[in-house]
């Protein structure tokens, strides 16, 4: 128990500090509430509107890739430190680990995780390109009915 005494002391001090702070601010602080003071605390600028955009999922995938590499490094560091002692067994283990890891990475990249921007898919152009399609047949003008400047434009 003796070795835990500092931890217990620290815990008691931390609890005391919290309680004393709350009690002191309740007793000493002047009470002049305003709208800004009563709002829940958030750092940064107060948002004027709700965020309308959807969050692009590609950021999420890149973050996952980042975590993957982090994990790999976490495993490689201890190996690097005790490489001598682990010998060839450790070396081949790391090769196997890296190979499996690399297979996962190849899979993710081949499925297009790093293709940034809008997806370009190859499409057959037969339906899109033909002599019948002109500007007037493919573009429908909407919302122009009854507008005053229609004739002017």
């Amino acid at each position, binding site marked *: 128990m003796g070795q835990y005494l500092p931890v217990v002391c620290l815990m008691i001090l931390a609890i005391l500090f919290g309680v004393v702070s709350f009690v002191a601010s309740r007793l000493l602080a002047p009470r002049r509430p305003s709208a800004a003071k009563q709002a829940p605390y958030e750092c940064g600028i107060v948002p004027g509107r709700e965020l309308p955009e959807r969050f692009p999922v590609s950021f999420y995938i890149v973050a996952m890739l980042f975590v993957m590499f982090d994990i790999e490094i976490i495993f490689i560091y201890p190996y690097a430190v*005790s490489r001598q*002692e*682990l*010998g*060839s*067994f*450790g070396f081949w283990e790391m090769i196997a680990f890296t190979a*499996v890891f690399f*297979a996962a990475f*190849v*899979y993710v990249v*081949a*499925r297009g995780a790093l293709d940034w921007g809008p997806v370009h898919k190859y499409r057959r152009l037969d339906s899109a390109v033909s002599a019948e399609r002109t500007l007037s047949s493919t573009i429908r003008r909407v919302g122009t009915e009854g507008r005053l400047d229609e004739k002017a434009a």
Partner: protein
Amino acid sequence: MIVAAGTFTAPSIDWFALAPLLVLLVGGLVLLVTASFTPQWPKHLYAYATVALGLAAMVVAFVQWHAITRDGPKLLVGNAVSYDHFSMFGIITICIGLSLSAMVTDDFLRREGMEGPEIYGLYLMAAVGGIVMVMSNDLIVLFLGLETLSISLYVLAASNRRRAESQEAGIKYFVLGGFSSAFFLYGIALIYGGTGSTNFNRILTAFDSVPLQRKDSLVLVGVALLLVGLGFKVSAAPFHFWAPDVYQGSPTPVTAFMASVGKAAAFAALFRVFVVALPNWKDDWRPVVWVLAILTLLVGSISAVVQTNVKRMLAYSSISHAGFILIGLEAAGHSGASTRSGMPSSMMYLMIYSVLVIGTFAVVAVVGRTGDGATDLGSFRGLSRQKPWLATALTVFLLAQAGVPLTSGFIAKFGVIEAAVDEHSYALATIAMVSAVIGAFLYLRILISVWLADAEVGDEKREAMHIPISTGAAILLCVGFTIYVGVNPEWLIQASDRVVLVAVPVVGG
């Protein structure tokens, strides 16, 4: 497992003994990577590759079964993995589950328009995790297998991205499964603190050492937490709440995979931990397992009666089957280390139940039609008029699940109840038989809908059912196994009797 760097000696690795694991692992990785490069493979090919890998691993396991019969069991990779009949029986069960589920999944994915290699890759990785659990001889290795299995299953549960129910099932399973993993891990930590090791051999021998007497409460809390963690995975009451929602929401073939491979691996792990590593504390855990078994049996069979969705009914029936297998664990808690009486019947139960549940869910997947939504009891009405053979197959599966003689389900239930009676747990055996009767009501309720009721009004407007070829083959194989084992069970009983000879040396009694 933890060694100081200065004293490290590389463990020798017997690659052949690990072959079933490696076949599935390497095969799964190669399947995923090559499939990601190449355009969509011709139809059936992903599934056939998975079935081929499952069968290859099963053949290797059969060869190893005979090798073990000849040379005896042993421990591998620095005593972390055991190579014995128990492992091989579990591996064969998992491979059967994997292959049959892949056959059902093939048609399902095409119908739902989500064809791709990912599901099969996840199946293979989940099977690898299950095999690691079955073979483990160390709590850390067991945990690794458990997580590999569970994480694959979380993703599989949510794999139908267009259905909100599937998403809901995935997130529910993930949150509760992660919670139970935390329990399990805490249990490992406490057992390590109490016995000084995570290895089953050392945990077994630590019981005789003097300092343990002081730390016994630490071990007991650890044992309790391990039971909670694994109880979640096998969906034993009162840790079963996730099962109905997840089984109902997941894509139907995935439910079949979960109920067969997931349950078999989790139960095999339960037996490994409690019967092989912790038999010295059996007087402490046996009463808890007794209560769990009774709760699971009653909750499973009584709650199933009031359900109206067939997938949900089958989830509750799966809970009650878990109760039956827990009876085997309770019986093993009575007997000495050399007999381990409940273990063979429970392993046999797992194999038989895996086949049964995949067959049942295969029929449900066909009846569910496009969208996988028509799984309420009403959708099964009049099935016998539309698809008499499908209705017959469903009848065989449900009667077998109820435990009717001349089907495999009878052999399974008889085995565990016989084990309980042999160990004089008469109360448990009686309650098991009563709950089997209550459970029979549920199966008969489905069968009445199938055979005696007319089709729902408006049913003729719905898309016609059709039985695709590989699902049909899977159902046929399941029916064949169910009836063959029911009529001629000796070979399976004899094979399962050998699983008691595990690789860990018998210490004490």
